[in-house]
């Protein structure tokens, strides 16, 4: 009699779990493509925002990437004719409250085109202000070796976000690494 009860309990649980799994499998089929498409579209839009002159992007994986680099992804930015106009780098330098996910667009002449912050967990009202477009626009046109200063930036300098030097330095480090990597990629392309 007792065995019967166990079978009954197990059977009911199994039936419910199977029904849920079946339903989810069906629902996953419905949404999987939409989720993938939305994700791709978002990535393309954010890359477009740092490289407005490009029309398509192609992911590349250079062989000599360092293991512990803060660069997490590189794409070639191509114009309408398929000519390369620059590179798009995603990087995650360490900020004040954890990793900051930064996207940097670099032109072929090794100047910064645009910088955008995809996600971060910096202190709201302080470090989080670094995500403001106004602050990020300082980077446009800068070349490798950017330094951070607290006030009145000149030349290749960036003025730090008020009371958020760590965050500002993190973003600047990311932009500098992107510029260095772009130079390496350019040299490789010329050698070939």
């Amino acid at each position, binding site marked *: 009699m007792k065995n019967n009860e166990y079978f009954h309990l197990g059977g009911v649980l199994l039936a419910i*779990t199977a029904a*849920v*799994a079946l339903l989810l499998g069906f629902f996953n089929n419905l949404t999987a493509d939409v989720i993938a498409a939305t994700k791709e579209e978002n990535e393309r839009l954010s890359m477009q925002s740092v490289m407005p002159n490009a029309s398509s992007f192609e992911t590349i994986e250079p062989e000599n990437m360092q293991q512990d680099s803060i660069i997490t992804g590189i794409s070639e930015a191509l114009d309408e004719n398929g000519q390369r106009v620059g590179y798009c780098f995603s990087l995650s330098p*360490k900020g*004040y*409250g954890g990793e900051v996910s930064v996207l940097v667009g670099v032109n072929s002449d090794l100047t910064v085109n645009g910088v955008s912050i995809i996600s971060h967990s910096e202190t709201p009202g302080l470090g989080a202000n670094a995500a403001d477009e106004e602050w990020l626009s300082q980077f446009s046109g800068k070349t490798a070796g950017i330094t951070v200063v607290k006030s009145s930036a000149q030349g290749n300098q960036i003025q730090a976000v008020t009371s958020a030097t760590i965050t500002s330095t993190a973003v600047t480090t990311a932009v500098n690494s992107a510029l260095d990597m772009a130079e390496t990629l350019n040299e490789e392309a010329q050698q070939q």
Partner: protein
Amino acid sequence: MSGLTYYFSLALSAILIENFIFVKFLGCCPFLGVSKKIDTATGMGIAVIFVMTVASAVTNLVNTYILGTTYAYMRTVVFILIIASLVQFIEMFLMKSMPALYESLGIYLPLITTNCAVLGVANLNVTNGLDFIGSVICGSSAGGGFTLAIVLFASVREKLEYADYPKCFEGFPIALVSASLLAIAFMGFQGLSIF
């Protein structure tokens, strides 16, 4: 960063910098519910460390070898089932083999299934792409952070008994206000990064 320092910074971050209660808001229900006395808070904390460590290990293995990316959509269902059955299993195991420990922890165990810190740490291990050892370290130290928070909070609440405050703050409100002050203290750890 070499292996050992990496794991150390992982543990430090889970205990202090990203404390589950004060920074991530995970596990607030038991934090507010079972923190009236230091003894019960300690008991709950130890039970949570135990369950979170085991749950992190098991969910990591299941996710790596069974779910993968193909069945990622089943993650929530599978993880919560694993946690629920683990808690049940630990309860039976303790009852049979370590009755003394069961006496002191037993009543907290069923509550842990619905402690979102456990499911939270299992999910976080996956989203942060931690390996097996990393998951176990993260699970145990997140449990440690929970225990630290709940014991600190319980000692504050025991003192609150003698405090004088407006009548409408009786019970939960005054507890929440004290939790807020503790959370400010924990904000001081945010900038802590030794590596």
